[in-house]
């Protein structure tokens, strides 16, 4: 099988980890790649730790087992660090993107990282300022693309715009807010 990229999203119930994986999956599809997007289902409660996943490949993907060793981890809520083993299965050349207002260096020791690359972005502040609520999932898509280069950013923005326009036809402010959030996170994400 051709090169397969796997992503794990960590969030809390209500933060949109599932929607992020699905929206990102659609953006991947929009760029002519093959993908899967699926959440981990369990008892669903607001605030409980949840995960969702993407698989991305240039070739059709037939794998249907769980994602256990993703190359990329996206953390929507920094309070999960220390509670959930967010680096589980992450290889030494993996990438972590965290939504936080703290500097990246703070997490290296805490997460016992080796060679993994660490990126941070204050997606909660961005989403509050652009969307009006702390829903960090869409800005984290922007940060993810910048940190990994896995998709063409302009194409992703155009694709997501189309999807949001379909979903929120009656709420243009939601569309604009989300697109701004993605753009800002893309511009503001920092490496160590």
């Amino acid at each position, binding site marked *: 099988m051709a090169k397969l990229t796997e992503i794990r999203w960590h969030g809390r119930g209500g933060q949109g980890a599932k929607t992020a994986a699905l929206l990102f999956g659609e953006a991947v599809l929009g760029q002519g790649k093959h*993908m899967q997007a699926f959440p981990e*289902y369990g008892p669903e409660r607001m605030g409980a730790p949840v995960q969702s996943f993407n698989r991305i490949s240039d070739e059709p993907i*037939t*794998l*249907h087992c*769980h994602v256990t060793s993703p190359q990329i981890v996206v953390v929507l809520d920094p309070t999960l660090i220390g509670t959930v083993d967010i680096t589980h299965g992450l290889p030494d050349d993996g990438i972590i993107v965290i939504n936080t207002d703290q500097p990246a260096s703070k997490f290296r020791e805490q997460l016992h990282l080796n060679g993994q690359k660490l990126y941070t972005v204050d997606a909660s502040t961005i989403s509050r300022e652009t969307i009006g609520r702390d829903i960090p999932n869409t800005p984290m898509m922007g940060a993810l693309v910048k940190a990994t280069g896995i998709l063409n950013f302009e194409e992703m923005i155009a694709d997501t715009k189309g999807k949001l326009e379909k979903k929120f036809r009656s709420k243009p402010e939601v569309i604009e807010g989300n697109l701004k959030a993605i753009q800002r996170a893309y511009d503001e994400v920092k490496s160590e």
Partner: protein
Amino acid sequence: MKQINPDVCAAYPITPATEIMQIFASYVADGLVDTELVAVESEHSAMSASIGAAAAGARSMTATSSQGLALMWEMLYIAAGLRLPIVMPMVNRALSAPINIHCDHSDSMGTRDSGWIQINSENAQEVYDNIIQAVRIAEHPDIQLPAMVTYDGFIISHAMEPVDTYETEQVRKFIGPYKPMYSLLDIDHPITVGAIDLTDYYFEHRRALAEPTFHVLDVAEQVAADFEREFGRKYGIFELYKMDDAEVAIVVLGSTAGTAKVVIDGLRQNGVKAGMVKVRMFRPFPYKQIAEVLSSTKAVAVLDRSDGLAGMGGPVFGEVRSALYDSAKRPITANYIYGLGGRDITLAHIKSVYDDLLAIAKSGKLPEKLFSYLGVRE
């Protein structure tokens, strides 16, 4: 279902429900389909209403999963016994107890002797293609049986993956308008449906019910050939993966087949002659064809995503082993029960099965255990 535009859909999805009927109900509400949606009070009633509608001459569909299918139980036999070609997407999920919402095949396996045609799907594309084909197979004049299209709960039902869809007009042309052979509403040709039938004729009618099951596989192949001409995708009663020269093989249903393909590709790179038979038509079961395909192998493992609780392994194993009995040349078989209640089946699990098969093939000895449990803590 939207493209099929059935005349009647009845729905009451109980926990664990899927979004199928909910989304379909929105199509009805938005006027995107002409379907009469009957909201009922239980899945037993959903199947009852589907039966009533089908007996009245309507193209009738519903969808279910797990406990919902279990609650339909009584009516499933009636749908088949009355020869009503109802088509039903069926999301495979575990049965209680304990309570679980995840994938295994216990639900549909329990209905395997009900007279319903069962078509299994590996991925979302196959679900779509199989449902379209199921309409043609079920409604074929020589068949006239209900059909369920099964696919794995959560792994396929709640995951997003790309599907090539076809133009609605093309799909409707493929399935054609529904012309019921008999209809309660055709008052010029009155019929009786569901009459009492004791020692005098019950047996003859049940014997007659067996007749179409002898033709389903042929019809499924004809429909698949038409489907390939129209839509360009090839289907058979099973899919053979690298079976041409395979010495060790697994037999599997559903999404696990996709994961197994990755394992087989890896083994093939190392020169291991590994293959797979993915069963698409489970009811009726292609006994002869399976035996023919497997007779050239040395060792075969059947992977069952449900337990037969029969003292001799899972239901697919029973069928495959029975199919092989009359072969002059037959492989050694082993059975693995896996993935109950959504337990993950990993590449390593499947690889370990092939390792076992290679050892069996090399020694020529029967496995230590006829059936074992893969990925369980015991």
